[in-house]
């Protein structure tokens, strides 16, 4: 519609130019701030990798890759083989998973399938309480209460399996007898600590099973357990595996409780009731007095731990995301 007069662009909000006015500075600033905060995550992760690698380079230049696989750890002679700690980390975490998984899944199923909503609340509170107990308190309880109590139990098991082929190698006595502070005790405490996280992740996964699938199983005359096996399990399989892997990662990285109850003894053995060591435990215990190549080795161990847990978590998240995507699409 043309009139004789041109609209003056310099004037008020009614003109078209105000629609293209640039975003106010504060708004852009906020976005930048948010972006920086997000990038911080990536920066820290990269920073960890770079800084620990730098510090560990000292050790790596002497020990090389085979240092990771060597079991010789002799501080006096500057021998820093990492394998004993990797072994201890893996063994205690595997024990923790074996103990924690059935319990966690049992409680998760209890909450989602068995118990009516209202009575589920106290159970959730208990799980939260379990999760919030600080790890150092678990360690304190472990070393002062659990160890003395469990050692005679180990001893009787050990004498019980004396001579029986495989069991003796696992639960029997090693040259030092059995000890309250051991791989197994550490695994036990780790199991207690990772149960809440596995339970709550598994619960999330199981809750996404569509109700109509469960009804389909019931409509065929299935009992609740049969329904769980037929309808719930196939849907939540992958997610549960992811939850277990997250728990595994936590167990591997747990420091203080392990430092207190694993026994601080550098050895690789199949016997579970004897003292051992894990990566986080040795770093925690020995860092204070370390220097030079020793310290570099410890930091290198930290890098190894970082890499292992990153890989485990990547796999775990990948598995969980994939199953979540599939169930959303199906």
């Amino acid at each position, binding site marked *: 519609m043309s009139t004789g007069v041109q609209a003056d662009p310099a004037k008020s909000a009614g003109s078209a130019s105000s629609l293209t006015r640039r*975003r106010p500075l*504060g*708004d852009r600033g*906020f*976005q930048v701030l*948010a972006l*920086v*905060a997000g990038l*911080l*995550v*990536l920066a*820290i*992760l990269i*920073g*960890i990798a770079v800084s*620990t690698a730098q*510090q560990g380079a000292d050790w790596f230049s002497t020990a090389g890759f085979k240092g990771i696989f060597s079991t010789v750890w002799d501080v006096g002679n500057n021998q820093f083989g990492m394998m004993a700690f990797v072994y201890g980390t893996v063994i205690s975490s595997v024990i923790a998973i074996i103990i924690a998984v059935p*319990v*966690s*899944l*049992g*409680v998760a199923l*209890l909450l989602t399938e*068995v118990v009516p909503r209202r009575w589920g609340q106290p*159970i959730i509170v*208990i*799980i*939260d309480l*379990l999760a919030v*107990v*600080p*790890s*150092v*308190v*678990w360690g*304190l*309880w472990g*070393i*002062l*209460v659990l160890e003395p109590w469990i050692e005679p139990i180990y001893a009787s098991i050990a004498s019980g399996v004396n001579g029986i082929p495989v069991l003796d190698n696992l639960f029997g006595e090693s040259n030092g007898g059995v000890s309250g502070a051991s791989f197994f005790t550490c695994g036990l405490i780790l199991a207690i600590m990772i149960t809440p996280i596995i339970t709550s992740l598994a619960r999330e996964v199981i809750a996404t099973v569509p109700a109509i699938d469960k009804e389909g199983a019931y409509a065929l*005359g299935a*009992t*609740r*357990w*049969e329904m769980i096996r037929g309808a719930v399990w196939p849907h939540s399989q992958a997610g549960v595996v992811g939850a277990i892997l997250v728990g595994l990662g*936590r167990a591997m*990285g747990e420091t*203080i409780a392990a*430092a207190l109850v694993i026994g601080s003894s550098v050895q690789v053995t199949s016997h579970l009731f004897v003292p051992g060591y894990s990566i*986080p435990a040795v770093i*925690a215990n020995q860092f*204070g007095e370390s220097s030079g190549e020793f310290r570099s080795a410890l*930091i290198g161990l*930290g890098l190894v*731990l970082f890499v292992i847990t*990153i890989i485990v*978590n*990547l796999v*775990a*998240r990948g598995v969980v995301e994939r199953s979540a995507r599939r169930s959303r699409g199906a």
Partner: protein
Amino acid sequence: MAVVSDQPTIDLREPGGWRRSKNQIATVLMYVAFVIILIPLGLVIFEVIAKGAKAISWQFLTNSTIPPNVMPLGQGGMGAAVVGTLEITAFAAVIAVPLGILGAVYINEYGGGGKSWLSGLISFMSNVMVGVPSIVMGLFIFTVWVIPHGLTGLSGFAGSLALACLMLPLVIRSTYEMLRLVPDHLREASYALGATKSRVTLTVVLPSAISGIVSGSLLAIARAAGETAPLLFTIGLVESTNSNLFSGPTTALPSQIFSNALSPYVGAEERAWGAALTLIVIAFILLFVARIFTARFTRYAR
């Protein structure tokens, strides 16, 4: 009248033996699993209260001189550690909570909730970062902060940095979940009134998610308060209160518990239990407050 026909009676009772037993056994095992998790929780709370209660006194909580391990209970107190824990954790929260909220805002509000490749990457990586062991965070801050500053690098501030690294992904994750729950129509209403994105976020989105955000942050703080490993190489260990966060080593409750746990002296052991009780109480209080906020959030979200 419709006839109830005389057909042979149908047996509608429980299916026989094995199926029923399997079902019952499975149910029983699930309950057993619950009892199994009750046991350690109950035991640890019991022991901590039983052994820690006798150490607790006003002096214990406030006296700023931590006695040497060999001293029996009654001398000095853990005041230094209490102050240390409160200061270090609080400062870590000051760093981590705003940054974490901003990070979650970036992922959800600017990245479309993970749709853009960068926000997807950040979201994925912060989930992965949750799994990084706390001792690695401690080593990280040690190498990038403490070493360059030489001996003066040991300080409460360094400890706060390490704890903040630990808390950051937790806050991002829980805040992100809360932001996702805010319905889009609230945002749209605000946009329709001509608000900029930052204004929408600050005045509409964050306030409606605030209870959930607070709850998630409190849980992250509770986690940080109880962590020892990040503090091991960053704050040192001292025997008296250092309330200056930025200069000089200090101590905190978890550190004291850790060092006392390894000591053979009875007095040290008793002090460790007392400190453990204090720490657990702090953690439980934070959890309790967090749950109150969660309840408020779910109530308002309906």
